[in-house]
């Protein structure tokens, strides 16, 4: 049985983001164009989520201001969750992640 839809930051978020990873892909023949995704199991429902952050990393790379980026990640798993509003995907869990340039 799938978890009920619940919007907001769940208690498991802080520990759960340990299992999220930054996936960097480079399409063949695309030069230096990379795509950046945060992927992994949702800290709440454990289903796979994916957040594309090209629009954050790309401009930051161009402006060389990568020291600290903050992104809001919302669960967008494709599993059905009871009570989810029409047209939405995910279990409603969301939280912030800081991307730190090393």
């Amino acid at each position, binding site marked *: 049985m799938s978890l009920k839809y619940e919007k907001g930051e769940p208690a498991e978020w802080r520990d759960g983001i340990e299992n999220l990873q930054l996936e960097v892909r480079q399409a063949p023949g695309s030069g230096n164009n990379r795509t950046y995704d945060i992927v992994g199991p949702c800290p709440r429902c454990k289903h796979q989520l994916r957040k594309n952050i090209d629009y954050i990393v790309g401009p930051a790379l161009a402006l060389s201001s990568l020291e600290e*980026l903050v992104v809001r990640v919302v669960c967008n798993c494709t599993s059905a969750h009871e009570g989810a509003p029409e047209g939405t995907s995910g279990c409603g869990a969301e939280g912030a*992640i800081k991307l730190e340039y*090393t």
Partner: protein
Amino acid sequence: MSDSIEPKENPPQLKLHYTVLTPEQRDADIWAEEILRERLPRTRQLAQNWQAIISAITALLGAGTLISADDVIRALDPPGWAVLYGVLTGLALISAAGSILLASLAGQASWPVIPPGARERLALRETLIIRTRRLLKWSQLLAGIALILLICSFAVRWYAPEKPATKVSPTVVTIPISLQSAGRIKLQ
């Protein structure tokens, strides 16, 4: 507790950490994502607005220029100036027409074949956005060129030498006046 993960690939080296957003930051993020999601229709809307503006300006300036073009060309004396004026005006109107056409293409909703895969769909959407933006930029560039050409044509119109005006000498009519009729003629 370690709340950071090494990325799989090298550049750029980013670690993920837990953090908290203020309500204002969260609202701003939702707003930004909304804009990103609506990029294509927003860009098309922008193109349509631009097309309306450039069409109105072209109609206003173009019609005035064309209507008076015959008189202007006839008045310019060395024929070279007349040719230059004609070429500048013609190019300005062609550029303006091109600008309107490109803006119209940018503002049109296309009817692409939607691929089945999510990745291909994303690629298609990005391609459409890039195409729309490119058309809009070219349209704006052509509008700029049209404006410069039009200003140059006005400069020719105002400052190029004109044919000297034909002198009209007053006609002198000599009426013989006999002594008998002198009393009956009324000079007006």
